[in-house]
């Protein structure tokens, strides 16, 4: 994309790329996503100055764009459609951050797993894989999905988000809550 194109020309070019992407053209879609990422980042920065959050919200926006790409009308400007998605995800992230800060303390190691099973002391009460499966089935669906993707299938947060449809932040929150719930269930089983 020429750096000296006007905003109108740029919007028209993106609109054409998006139309091609709706038809399934992968090269056009990848080019579009790379070109719009700086714009998404600038929109997100208006709502957040936390560097860690910014990139996460950018990724969340790209995932949302992917999910709702069928709602874009190629006869309308692309910019407002994209900006609305980026703003919405930024506001949602801000609200989540406020809510989490109010009610929960994030545990940084919550979604890490130690390779040595003996280090996972909470797992001592589980004697069989059937028991593990039964405990997992007692979790709410989204928490179970997050835990399975991140722990059992060893997916990265980005891969798990693309696979499950949950945002990166939602995955972290649900995995954290799933581990808390599992610890509570394990405690019930201890004599």
């Amino acid at each position, binding site marked *: 994309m020429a750096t000296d194109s006007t905003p109108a020309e740029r919007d028209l070019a993106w609109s054409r790329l998006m139309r091609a992407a709706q038809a399934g053209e*992968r090269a056009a879609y990848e080019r579009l996503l790379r070109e719009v990422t700086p714009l998404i980042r600038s929109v997100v920065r208006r709502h957040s100055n936390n560097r860690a959050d910014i990139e996460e919200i950018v990724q969340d926006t790209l*995932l949302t764009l992917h999910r709702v790409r069928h709602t874009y009308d190629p006869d309308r400007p692309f910019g407002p459609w994209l900006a609305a*998605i980026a703003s919405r995800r930024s506001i949602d992230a801000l609200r989540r951050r406020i809510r989490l800060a109010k009610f929960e303390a994030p545990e940084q190691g919550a979604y890490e797993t130690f390779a040595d099973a003996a280090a996972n002391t909470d797992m001592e009460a589980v004697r069989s894989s059937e028991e593990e499966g039964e405990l997992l089935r007692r979790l709410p669906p989204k928490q179970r999905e997050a835990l399975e993707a991140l722990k059992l299938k060893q997916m990265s947060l980005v891969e798990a988000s693309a696979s499950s449809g949950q945002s990166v932040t939602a995955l972290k929150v649900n995995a954290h809550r799933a581990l808390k719930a599992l610890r509570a269930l394990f405690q019930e089983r201890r004599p």
Partner: protein
Amino acid sequence: MTHTDDLIESLAANLSPVRPLRAPLLRTLMWLAIVSAGALLIILRFANLSVFMGRVEVPRVALECLGSLLTAITAIFVAFELSVPGRSMRWVWLPLPPLLLWLAASGVGCLANGLGIRAVQGESAHCFIFIAGMSIPLSIGLFWMLRRAHPIAPLPVAIFGTLGVAAASATLLQFFHPFDITVLDLGFHLAAVGFVVFLGAALRRPLLSAA
């Protein structure tokens, strides 16, 4: 390569073609056509049309019906419009004039008819049951259509969608409401509309498959 680069590659590699969503106005007309056909069948089968025609000869009653009908149409349109990212929020004002017309015409009727002796007999409560009950199948159909958009801001979509559905139910009620409106009737109508809107707003995320 950053995580964002990885994500872009992954999204592009897994891209599949999609069928673009039809324009909000067209989707509104489709929903209205289906609901109108169903309403017509119910009216022809169960309503006493001669009584209804007699009632709407009173200008206030005609305005009340017009107000609720236009509220339904405009609110449903706003729901479809707002389900798409980037659409103007100014559309939220569209249902306001017919809503005010509906409330004003109903209010004038209440001034004329007072509390209403039927309140003692509990008939006014039937209005609540009718509006709330009729809103269920209408909402199911509407939310099924709205879900396809995976609205990124589901709350206004749910509020206007359920307002439209409740207003449509209230319009249909006019064909089965052989007596003039009283204060308690209006109270039950408003309570039913409020209840439906509240329920839709509370259940917006699972019902709308919000993105």
